């Protein structure tokens, strides 16, 4: 009998959903064994009954729940709570769901600051006032799923690699524990590492890193951080490269931006990175700012509005 799967997207960009579809032909194998009972991105399933007659938000029961996106407003919370109720196994899909993702960068500001900037400053279209009707109220901050409900499986990535989505689903179907890479991006990074002591200042990624001929294999290129380019690999969970292994950005000779979130579940990418850099004698004031080291994992209270935000 097919396993029932419910899928939801909260504060999400749909990249994670595309990642499911991106499994390619393997999707057919999966679909042979599962039945999607709810998936707003694919199916026109209404929350309050097909005719809008329901009084309560309702999602069908399922064995596996896939939720992408973090929790930004009260609607997201309501949907998430319902998903948790109806699904036996809840998977947080993508870094927004596991660590807040890009939208959690907004946690550096209070809601009124965000709304004011969005609706009232000259860089945006003029708007008389902040709309008040028909919109779900914002929460105080953008949170990851596990700050609100229990999460059973974490599948980080921005978006998660389809290989991991596939292997996670297959493992679940076969009743095996889900196995994902647990070390950092460096574990799969083929570049040459000799130590970071030579780096004194970090430079912006405006020029390409040093390497030989264009076709030169990656394992001949010096570690990007050791070239003085801020690469987040060491503090970022491996897995972006999927079965191909080589981290996606590194494969293009581009430094890791940290999209899979911290290595340890409760890690803090900004804290760990700045600490490791400072230990190595790197002048961390050469970074114009460090908030963006949490650009993928600002939930869990790691990014907060600054106290003097009011005056600023």
């Amino acid at each position, binding site marked *: 009998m097919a396993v029932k799967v419910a899928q939801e997207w909260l504060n999400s960009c749909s990249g994670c959903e595309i990642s499911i579809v991106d499994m390619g032909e393997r999707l057919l194998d999966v679909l042979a064994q599962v039945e999607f009972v709810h998936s707003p991105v694919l199916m026109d399933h209404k929350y309050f009954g097909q005719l809008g007659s329901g009084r309560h938000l309702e999602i069908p029961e399922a064995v596996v729940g896939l939720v992408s996106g973090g929790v930004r407003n009260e609607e997201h919370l309501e949907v998430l709570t319902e998903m948790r109720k109806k699904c036996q196994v809840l998977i947080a899909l993508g870094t927004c769901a596991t660590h807040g993702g890009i939208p959690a960068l907004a946690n550096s500001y209070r809601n009124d600051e965000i709304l004011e900037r969005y609706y009232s400053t000259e860089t945006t279209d003029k708007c008389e006032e902040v709309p008040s009707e028909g919109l779900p109220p914002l929460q105080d901050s953008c949170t990851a799923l596990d700050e609100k409900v229990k999460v059973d499986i974490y599948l980080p990535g921005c978006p998660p690699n389809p290989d991991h989505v596939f292997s996670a689903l297959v493992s679940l179907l076969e009743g095996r524990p889900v196995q994902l890479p647990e070390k950092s991006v*460096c574990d*799969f990074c083929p570049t040459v590492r000799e130590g*970071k002591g030579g780096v004194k200042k970090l430079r912006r990624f405006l020029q390409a890193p040093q390497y030989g001929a264009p076709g030169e294999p990656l394992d001949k290129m010096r570690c990007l951080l050791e070239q003085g380019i801020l690469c987040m690999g*060491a*503090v970022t969970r491996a897995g972006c490269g999927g079965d191909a292994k080589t981290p996606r950005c590194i494969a293009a000779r581009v430094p890791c931006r940290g999209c899979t979130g911290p290595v340890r579940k409760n890690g803090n990418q900004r804290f760990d*990175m700045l600490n490791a850099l400072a*230990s*190595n004698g790197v002048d961390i004031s050469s970074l114009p700012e460090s908030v963006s080291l949490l650009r993928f994992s600002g939930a869990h209270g790691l990014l907060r509005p600054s106290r003097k935000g009011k005056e600023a």
Partner: protein
Amino acid sequence: MITLAEITDVTGEPGNFQVEVTRRPRFVDTEKCIACGLCAEKCPKKVDDEYNEKISKRKAVYIPYAQAVPQKYAIDADNCIYLKSGKCGACEKFCPAGAINFEDKPQTVNLNVGAIILSPGFAAFDPTGIRTWGYGEFKNVITAMEMERILSASGPTEGHLVRPSDKKEVKRIAFIQCVGSRDLNKSRNGYCSSVCCTYAIKQAMMAKDHVKDLEASIFFMDMRTHGKEFERYYERAKGLGIEFKRCRVHSLEPVSETSDIYFRYIDDCGRQLETQYDLVVLSVGLCTPPSAMELAYHAGVELNENRFVESSSFDPVATSRPGVFSCGAFSGPKDIPQTVMEASAAAADATRLLAGARNSLTRTKEFPPEIEVASDEVRIGVFICHCGTNIAGVIDVERLARYAETLPNVAHVGRNLFTCSQDTQDIIKNAIRDKGLNRVVVAACTPRTHEPLFRETLKSAGLNEYLFDMANIRNQDSWVHAAEPERATEKAMDLVRMSVAKVGLLTPLPSISVPVNQAALVIGGGISGMVSALELADHGFHVSLVEKANVLGGQARHLFRTWKGELIEPALQELDARVRSNPLITLHLESTVGSAEGFVGNFKSTIVRGKDSRVVEHGATIIATGGQGYVPEGEYLFGTSSRVFTAIEFDKLRMVGDRRMKQAKNYVFIQCVGSRCEERMYCSRVCCTHSVQAAIELKESSPAGEVFVLYRDMRTYGQREELYRKAREKGVVFIHYEAHQMPKVRPLEPRRLEVEVFDHILHEPLRIVTDIVVLATAITPNAATAELADIYKLPVDADGFFQEAHAKLRPVDFAADGIFMAGLAHCPKPVDESIAQAKAAAGRAVSVLAGSSIDLEATKATVVNANCDGCAMCLDVCPYKAISLVSEEEAGGKRNARVEVNLAQCKGCGLCQATCPKDGIYVAGFSLEQIAAQVEAALAG
């Protein structure tokens, strides 16, 4: 260790001396004394505290100072009421350990030893009664020794800079240099004390730290900051606004109503100035105390006219009596690093005599096999020490014990009067056995003194010694919260809870021991390298000596005489012959070290000679690669005129009897060429003495000729000062110049030169016509320094010389174990000091090579393979270069990288653990989990 001892007679010969030692009574049994201090608290007799320069009081029963070894009390018989009148005895009544023994009598101890080292140190010059400075008469004139105590946080004023007369905070302070040094009028000491300039700068800088807007002036003749890094320190002091006034102060007068000190002096522009200071510090010199002269007499060692031990430059720690060695200020004024070098050198010379008997009197202790505890449930035994009344007098130990019983995993709690006593060790051992304990906490004093003892107890009970922790409820609790027993008890409960939380997480650690390859590699065949190699070979170790040139001797081949006048060449030839004929020394000429790997006890170095290379295995490494002379290209017509030479060229040409030297009449020496400048902010140490010595010889060989020495500060430090005096007597003209008014050299008629220098006495430029100009050029590091730094991963300092492990206390060691340095590779220094350092380096190497293995602490960085992915964040963070990256290929072709720790190189500092972003490495016994558990427990109360 025999304290309170005096040598009264020495007979016999090297290898077999009979030494008669008289041990004065301590009146305290050191076996019983626990240094609780109750005796001193109860003693009614107050005495001036000599350690605090009599600024404060101590009791008649006392420990001279906080760091004294042994930490045991002693009774001062001259002041003890009981010993003088038979009444009192308070200390005996109150001593909880029964350690007071008024019946203690002088004893004579006879020792049979093979070698003797004398290091009685120095006494500071006593300026009492000399009218010029008014010391002893004016309250606000103090000596530097008193200043040292006033600046000390643990001193009589707790580090507050207040003056003696009225305890007013000092706002203006003056230091007067050369009090009792370089002075045959007011003292008998013609020599320079060598250390006072730098210590005055240090005190002035510290004083400025204490009082922000302090005005500090140093009155001096020549600023002698000739030690390593000292010149930079001098510059820093100038930058901080400390004023340096080049003049002698002829007298001080008190200002009666304020007790300030009135000062009149003439500055270097000849102006007469007057000023007042709150406090005047006399930078007193070093001299040999009468007790040390007596020691010299009993030991049969000759002293020179300055009352220092006379020694040869080529055997700097030997004395006139074979088998008796001396080190430190006994053989002349010197600073700490030089003293420590000599100490190691004397130890090396002494152990050379004893090499045959090495390890013949050592005993090893046997321990039972270790009990396997890893998987057992945690059963903690807590032993609470009363320490007499030291702990129990403040802390409610009963309540503490009851509380400890309630803590998780605690299976046994015991209380002991003295947990460190021998019978308590048996109690602990039995408790471990009977109660099945597998972790032990001792709540007592500090692990810094007592951890080794308790670890040994665990070992003898068959428990791994690392399953142990101490709660410091004495030094850090009962002693510092004596007035708050309730709070102290609560803190003790917290401390025990913290220890229990930590000890439960400890795991047995294996003892680590590395084998030692008992051979040495000496790199550099100059005078330092040869001396090191010979010293090691004389100790019976095989040595490979690598020299890049095709001859031995290094820079010493260009030198003429030592400052004491000994000819260098014959000494060099003798060394050369001894090295070549020594069967234990393998000489590798025209060779360099191309690469190396390994660590203490187990180095493998590749020696390259042309196209050949061979690997040498060795347990210790000495680097003595020397330095080189600075080439003053383009300065003072060097390279243009055939009559401008560097000092080394000058020596050489004189030795070979060059025609220009024979015909010349007038000479000008220019000092500090390439030294003490922006690019090389250090003093080259040897050049002043060399120029002065050469000037004397020139004057002696042709008195009619004129010899000028143009200098910035004349740095004929120590007993070399006599040369300076002699040169002036002979009529050598010394002219001071400032760095911003450098002398100029112009060609004159053929074969003559004109030197122009601004004369500070005449206030106008002076032109000197001369035949020869000698440039006293700097000593610079040579290229091998950087290469070897790379090969052996060694640090170099800002000037390019090798960086020692500790500037004062470990001047011969590198931070990495098993590698030592000697000679110019460390910093500029003369022949005698190079030889002392070379012997010291050999002595330090012997301490590695003497045993066939080295036991290491198990507190080491440990890699967690499940977490480490070889991101290499920790590689360069390790100060000991103990971490390396390794990788292996997995079946699927994936490369698995991770770091590896070399246990022999790791010191367990844990910088790696504080850097790792993913818990990939931790220090055994101090993991973040264990530290966090202590923090959690501390805050749980």
